C-alpha cells in the first residue's frame, strides 16, 4: 500500500466513557472533562458474558456488544442511542449448516468486534471462537461469515486444531485506514494473517515471530498473537504482543522484530494487551505478565506495572506509580486502551474487577472502579 501523508489529529477535549465488558455484564464508566471524577453505570445485560463492547466512531452513538450466557448461545446486541435501548441482531454470527453427514462448526462466542472502514458506514467485523470471521453491512443487525476466511482450504490448519484451554480466539481485526480491502487479523492460535482483497484470500504474516511452543523451527503459521494493532497514522507499522514476546513490523518488508528483547530480563516481554499512542506511532504501552512455568499470567513477581516505549521499542520505561505493591490479577488482551486526549489517558481492567486509570500517559494510576466482575474488555469512547 502506498503511504499518504497524514495529518496528526488534534487531541480530544470532550468526555471519555470507558466501555467495560465483564464475565457478568457490561458497564460504562463516564469521566468528567478533566478525567478526574468518574461515575459507573448500572450493569448492562447483567449476568451475560460480555466479551466486547465497542462504540462506532463513525457515528459516535452506535454500540455493539458481544454476549452469551452460561446456558444460552452467542449473540450480538446493538444500541443506536449509546446504551439507552438495545436490540438483538436479527441474524447473529453463526457458521453455515454442514451438509448431511458432515460435522459443522458451532459458534461458542463472539470474541472481538471492530467497526469497518470509514468509507463503509454500517460495516462491522466480528471474530469468534471457534475461529471465524464475520461481517455485518447494516450496523450489526445481520451478520454473514467471511467465506474467504471461514471456508479457506487452509483455515483448519491455520487454526491449529482449536485446542486452547479457554477456546481459540480470532481477534485484532485491523482495517487499513487507506482502504477497506486491506485487513489484518490475529488468530490465537494461528498467527497474524493479511488480506489485500477485502477478505477473499488470506496469507500468513508471521516471519520473524517466535513460536517456541511448537517443534517446527520458524513455522509459517501456528503462532499465538495476543493482541495486534496497526497504527492509523503509520499504517505500514504493526505492533503485536505475542505469546512469545513483543514485536514491531514495518511493511511492506513483513518481518517481525522482537522489540521486547529490550525489556528488563527480570520482567520479560510476555503479556496480553498492547496499546497505541493516538498521535505518536513510536509510543506503545504494554502490561507484562508472568509467562514462566505454568503461565500464571499475573504480573511478574506480583508487582503490577505498565511499560512504555517512546522510540518504537528500543528502550522501555516502567510505570507503576499508584498500583498496589503486590497484586495477583491479570489484564486480558482486550482490557487495556488509550484515549485521544493530551496527555493521553490509559485505561485497564483486571480479572479481579478493578478499573485503573492514568490521565498522564501512565506516569501515575488511580482506581476509580472496583468490585466489578472479572473484566474481559476495556474500550474508550470519546463523547
Amino acid at each position, binding site marked *: 500500500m502506498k503511504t499518504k501523508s497524514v495529518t496528526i489529529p488534534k487531541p480530544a477535549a470532550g468526555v471519555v466513557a470507558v466501555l467495560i465488558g465483564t*464475565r457478568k455484564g457490561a458497564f460504562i464508566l463516564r469521566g468528567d472533562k478533566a478525567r478526574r471524577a468518574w461515575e459507573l453505570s448500572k450493569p448492562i445485560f447483567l449476568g451475560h458474558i460480555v466479551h466486547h463492547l465497542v462504540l462506532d466512531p463513525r457515528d459516535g452513538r452506535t454500540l455493539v456488544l458481544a454476549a452469551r*450466557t*452460561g*446456558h*444460552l*448461545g452467542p*449473540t450480538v446486541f446493538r444500541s443506536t442511542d449509546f446504551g439507552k435501548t438495545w436490540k*438483538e*441482531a*436479527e441474524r*447473529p454470527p*453463526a*457458521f*453455515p*449448516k*454442514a451438509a448431511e453427514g458432515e*460435522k*459443522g*462448526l*458451532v*459458534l461458542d462466542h463472539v470474541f472481538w468486534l471492530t467497526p469497518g472502514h470509514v468509507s463503509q458506514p454500517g460495516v462491522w467485523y466480528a471474530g469468534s471462537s471457534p475461529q471465524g470471521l464475520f461481517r455485518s453491512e447494516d450496523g450489526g443487525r445481520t451478520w454473514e461469515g467471511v467465506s474467504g476466511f471461514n471456508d479457506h482450504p487452509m483455515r483448519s490448519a491455520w487454526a491449529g486444531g482449536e485446542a486452547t484451554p479457554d477456546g481459540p480466539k480470532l481477534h485484532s481485526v485491523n482495517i487499513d485506514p487507506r482502504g477497506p480491502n486491506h485487513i489484518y487479523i490475529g488468530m490465537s492460535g494461528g498467527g497474524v494473517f493479511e488480506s489485500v482483497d477485502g477478505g477473499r484470500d488470506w496469507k500468513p504474516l508471521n516471519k520473524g515471530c517466535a513460536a517456541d511452543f511448537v517443534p517446527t523451527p520458524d513455522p509459517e503459521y501456528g503462532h499465538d498473537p495476543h493482541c495486534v494493532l496497526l497504527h492509523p497514522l503509520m499504517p505500514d507499522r504493526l505492533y503485536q504482543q505475542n505469546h512469545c514476546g513483543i514485536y514491531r513490523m514495518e511493511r511492506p518488508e513483513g518481518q517481525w522484530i522482537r522489540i521486547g528483547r529490550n525489556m528488563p530480563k527480570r520482567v520479560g516481554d510476555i503479556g496480553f494487551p498492547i496499546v497505541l499512542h493516538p498521535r505518536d506511532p513510536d509510543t506503545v504501552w504494554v502490561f507484562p505478565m508472568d509467562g514462566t512455568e505454568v503461565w500464571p499470567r499475573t504480573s511478574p513477581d506480583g508487582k503490577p506495572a505498565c511499560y512504555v516505549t517512546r522510540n518504537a521499542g528500543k528502550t522501555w520505561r516502567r510505570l507503576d506509580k499508584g498500583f498496589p505493591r503486590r497484586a495477583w490479577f491479570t489484564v486480558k488482551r482486550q482490557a487495556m486502551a488509550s484515549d485521544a486526549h493530551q496527555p493521553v489517558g490509559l485505561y485497564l481492567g483486571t480479572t479481579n474487577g478493578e478499573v485503573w486509570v492514568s490521565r498522564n500517559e501512565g506516569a501515575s494510576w488511580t482506581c476509580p472502579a472496583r468490585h466489578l466482575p472479572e473484566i474481559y474488555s476495556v474500550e474508550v469512547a470519546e463523547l
Partner: protein
Amino acid sequence: MVVHIPTPLRSYTDKQSVVEAGGRTLGEALARIDQDYPGFRFRIIDEQDGIREHIKIFINEKPVRDLSAPTEPGDTIHIICALSGGV
C-alpha cells in the same frame, strides 16, 4: 402443546413462562416459537441443529436430544437451563 420457558429466555416471550406451539416434531415447535419470538431458537439450538450443551429439553418428562423427536397436541415441553455448577 404448551412449552414451559425458563427465566433466561423470557426476555423473548414477553416475560411469559408458558407459550403455545404447534408442530409434529420438537424442531417444528421451536421454529414456530421462533416465528413469534425471533431470536429465541438460536439461543438454545446451534447452527448445526444441536441442542446447546447446557440446555435440556423434556417432552412429557422424557428427555430428548434431537429436534426430530415427535410431538403431539396436548404434549408438554419443558426447556431447562441445566443445573451444572456455575461461576
